[in-house]
């Protein structure tokens, strides 16, 4: 099949970008979307032109590197897959495909279709963990966790940190991402001691990074390649408000017995 691509090209974060049109010819239906771009890049390289930069790595839908905004959708038109799992049989011969990077002030473009998503790391660093050192753990089966709870925590834990939720959101909100981690750890018994300090720390960092707020349009849920649900955001809000009203460390800032 032959396609026309409108691709966002931008030298770096300081330079203005623009759309450039390319022809992708002789594309097989069995190719993944990224393999189609590989073909285009090979022909650009042969002409000693700069190939199109895009982030990618595992190409099996789990590392969360790939991040293309294809025809107005993060990860393209199909549901519940990443760009690397999108195959060309989804498109029609002769079609024009528009490819953009993730769009969010908190994800600046580093080059072409690649963005800087380190804000996600910083949110996790603010509190997305259980404080346990190596070596001090008790026997794994000493903690009983009901299967439904374990399964639900797992559902939240499947987030791959790709940022499609932010790209999809008109407010560029990161709440689906942040709430997934908070929910995973908040559901598990191991996560209880830090449950409320965690949510406050992570939300504060999220705000500092410049992500917008949630207005419940649900675009994030619709576009999430791992089908993380809005319920996570509800859980996060619940924990956040509970923390503010009842659990904030300042409220209980007295030493017992004094």
């Amino acid at each position: 099949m032959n396609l026309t691509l409108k691709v966002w090209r931008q030298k770096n974060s300081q330079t203005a970008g623009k759309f450039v049109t390319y022809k992708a010819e002789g594309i097989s239906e069995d190719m993944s979307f990224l393999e189609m771009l590989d073909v285009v890049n090979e022909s650009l390289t042969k002409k000693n032109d700069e190939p199109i930069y895009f982030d990618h790595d595992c190409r099996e839908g789990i590392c969360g590197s790939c991040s293309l905004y294809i025809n107005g959708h993060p990860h393209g038109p199909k549901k519940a897959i990443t760009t690397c799992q999108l195959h060309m049989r989804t498109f029609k011969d002769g079609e024009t495909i528009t490819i953009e990077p993730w769009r969010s002030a908190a994800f600046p473009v580093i080059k072409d279709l690649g963005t800087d998503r380190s804000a996600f790391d910083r949110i996790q660093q603010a509190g997305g963990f259980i404080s346990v050192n190596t070596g001090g753990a008790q026997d794994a089966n000493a903690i009983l966790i009901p299967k439904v709870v374990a399964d639900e925590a797992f559902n939240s834990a499947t987030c791959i940190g790709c940022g499609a939720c932010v790209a999809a959101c008109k407010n560029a909100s990161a709440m689906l991402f942040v709430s997934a981690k908070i929910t995973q750890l908040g559901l598990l018994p191991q996560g209880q001691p830090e449950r409320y300090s965690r949510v406050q720390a992570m939300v504060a960092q999220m705000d500092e990074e410049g992500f917008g707020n949630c207005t419940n349009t649900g675009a994030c849920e619709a576009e999430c390649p791992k089908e993380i649900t809005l319920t996570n955001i509800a859980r996060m809000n619940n924990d956040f408000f509970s923390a503010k009203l009842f659990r904030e460390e300042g409220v209980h800032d007295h030493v017992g017995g004094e």
Partner: protein
Amino acid sequence: MSLDAKIPQGPLAEKWSKHKFNLKLVNPANKRKYDVIIVGTGLAGASAAASLAELGYNVKSFCFQDSPRRAHSIAAQGGINAAKNYQNDGDSVYRLFYDTIKGGDYRAREGNVYRLAEVSVNIIDQCVAQGVPFAREYGGLLDNRSFGGSQVSRTFYARGQTGQQLLLGAYSALNRQIHLGKVKMYTRTEMLDVVLVDGQAKGIVTRNLKTGEIETHAGHAVLLATGGYGNVFYLSTNAIGSNVTAAWRAHKRGAFFANPCYTQIHPTCIPVTGDHQSKLTLMSESLRNDGRVWAPKTVETAQKLQKKEITAAQVKEEDRDYFLERKYPSFGNLVPRDVASRNAKEMSDEGKGVGTTGLAVYLDFAEAIQRLGEDTVRAKYGNLFDMYYQITDENPYKQPMRIYPAVHYTMGGLWVDYNLSTNVPGLYAMGECNFSDHGANRLGASALMQGLSDGYFVIPYTLGDYLATIGPKPVDKNHPAFEKTKQEVIAYNNKLLALKGNKTVVEYHRELGHIMWEYCGMARTEEGLTHAKGLIKALKADFWKNAIVTGENDEVNAALERAGRVADFIELGELMVTDALARRESCGGHFRLESQTPEGEALRDDDNFAFVSAWEFKGEDQEEELHKEELIFENVKLSQRSYK
């Protein structure tokens, strides 16, 4: 030079405990005076960074990805072994040790493997404490399943994404230390060389992948956790970015490379469709618990299937050959990976392969769906079935999967002693980038175990001994070795950037892959390997004349990154062929056609080849020198592996 593996004396079960006691300790107040460099943030790198920072060392952690969470450990699917014996089915540390030694075809060290089995139980405890959501039973206890090459259920799993969940656990521990200021994290930063001062590793040279800046970093020790080199085959189940560069450049600075020819070809991957293909997708080996592997009994039937004249469902039961069940009645579909892969290749070679290319066999779930119901099968393998459907456009609930072996894991790597130290003092290697624990074949669910064992439970002890020995005096970053090494890296990159020929780096990579797969893949011969060596030498010469590398250094330049990695793969490819030539026996994943049993199984030659091959770099375009570390077996009896 003689290689001292430093295996502690004494009974097998006491070696590690005694060794831990004998290792020197660093005073708690002195730990903060040491800087430790860790390259790679997969299971081994992230767990080591977190654990060493918890102890009080200052850690600098590096990864080429945009986030430490994206290291390729994340893609591991099936599970992680641990000798917990939660299932009361006869498992023990000794059994896990024995299975691993046997699975590796008796080409691993007893001491290392026993330690791995011993600490496996702690790994599960640690991960659960971090909030890793392993699969559970209704009573709230952890669930287990069985995996290839073992007859007990000792594999812990998190649906089909155990790797991601374990890595996110280690990543969260790493994040905590970054938050506490004990780890300084460098993302999108690629290590391009190691700095040696008076023969000791004291730092690294890196390239900032966003700005192109070449920088030096100093530390009291350098720990590599940079993964395997499967991408030398171009097509593999590795991530596109997985590369050998850090390990290879360390090798060129003096670190020995051990057993490079030991590569694992995984049996259950989605077959190749064409030349455009950029990677192969693995489907967890756990599928073999319920899926039955078969090929048509006759070439005629196979041809009809290849031409799509009939469908798999139309092949009658008596016309199917469930070849693994037939040949290995006691292990059946659960034989180790090397055995399963070789048998699939044999079927295809005999013309009994299926799919349009004839390079595939079936993995059939019809019987399982009938026995368990579609819902149960979906609950167990749903994500794998979906993935298969996405890629092939075929519904595995309705028709059998087509599978074919693909390069998956490399057992070889930098030579390390029992302390995970390479022969270069101060330079350590952990996880897949070392060679240590899997012998000539790795068992399923053992890679995650080894990565986390090295990072959480081995290096925190053994590194302390070295650091205590050298003392906390700061590393002098003004030593001329830093600037000299940096200038060498800059010159090398400029040489790459000057290449303005007519063939892309990807084309060279693909060509190298063809050579490796054809001559150094699942079946190897003296003649083929000799031929391959010539081809690779020619390829290297051609690369440095005719490759095209676009762009400049001072910008994001994926072409330059790839060029450096491919150049290193070409050199490694030659060493793999050299190693495969020198090892005139078959063992595990290394199958020499000249050395097989009458039944066509790998035939070892223990009298002459019960050693680790450790190769020393002797200079550009020079033959490498082989050093042998004899393998001593005091506890297991070497025997012909049998899974019949």
